[in-house]
């Protein structure tokens, strides 16, 4: 069975989803990611979905689960690169992925994770100044 590759990028993990996901692949990704977060002490997980043409409630649920699991393991999940048509559809579908952070692209996502690492535990706002 093929699996989605997980890359280590500094203190973060990068997953690029490029295929039309079927259920087993999604389940496998969830398991692999969980193990890898623990093994690498990753503080962030970037999931690049810019290649995905749709996100249905199944994939949405998967993203939510990954975010929840990583949070428990002290890693922040950022979903990056969602296409406009996909975002519109997802909202219409009724899925807002409130537990998931988002960024426009991998670069911005990385910045987000890095900023979290630089900040002391308390700060939650983004009043970074300059």
């Amino acid at each position: 069975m093929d699996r989605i590759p997980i890359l280590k990028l500094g203190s973060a993990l990068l997953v690029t989803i490029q295929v039309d996901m079927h259920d087993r692949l999604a389940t496998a990704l969830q398991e692999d990611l969980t193990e890898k977060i623990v093994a690498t002490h990753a503080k962030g997980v970037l999931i690049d979905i810019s290649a995905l043409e749709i996100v249905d409630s199944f994939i949405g649920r998967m993203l939510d689960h990954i975010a929840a699991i990583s949070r428990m393991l002290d890693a922040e999940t950022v979903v990056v690169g969602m296409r406009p048509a996909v975002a519109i559809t997802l909202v219409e579908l009724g899925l807002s992925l409130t537990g998931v952070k988002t960024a426009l692209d991998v670069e911005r996502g990385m910045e987000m994770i890095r900023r979290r690492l630089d900040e002391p535990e308390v700060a939650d706002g983004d009043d970074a100044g300059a």
Partner: protein
Amino acid sequence: MATTPARDLMEVRSSDDVVRVRQQVRARAVEVGLSLVDQTKIVTAASELARNMLDYGGGGVATIEMVTDGHRRGLRLTFEDQGPGIADVQLALKDGYTSGSGLGLGLGGAKRLCNEFTIDSAPGRGTRIVCARWM
């Protein structure tokens, strides 16, 4: 006006079939000339409905048709299963309602993604869902 001859019948028996239905709906949506957003909506609806049929109806048949009503073109999808059926259709359409382990967005969500949506179901009679997206 008459339905154009393009029509696909697809069995949905596994999660791979759901992926195949999605891809075929996408191809037909492009052929019909739906906008990118409309394509995405109907493909997502197809994904939800095909998966619902697999999870709760024990699988079934998906039909994809390119249709026209005079000057508008569109795509009509039919999902038919011989499963246990739905006792309360109104309830099943409500967000948050689920008899399985999902989020309960499947039916109501799919309905919002379509211009037309009808459910024909009763306990023991299976379920037939017809939905359409127009240009």
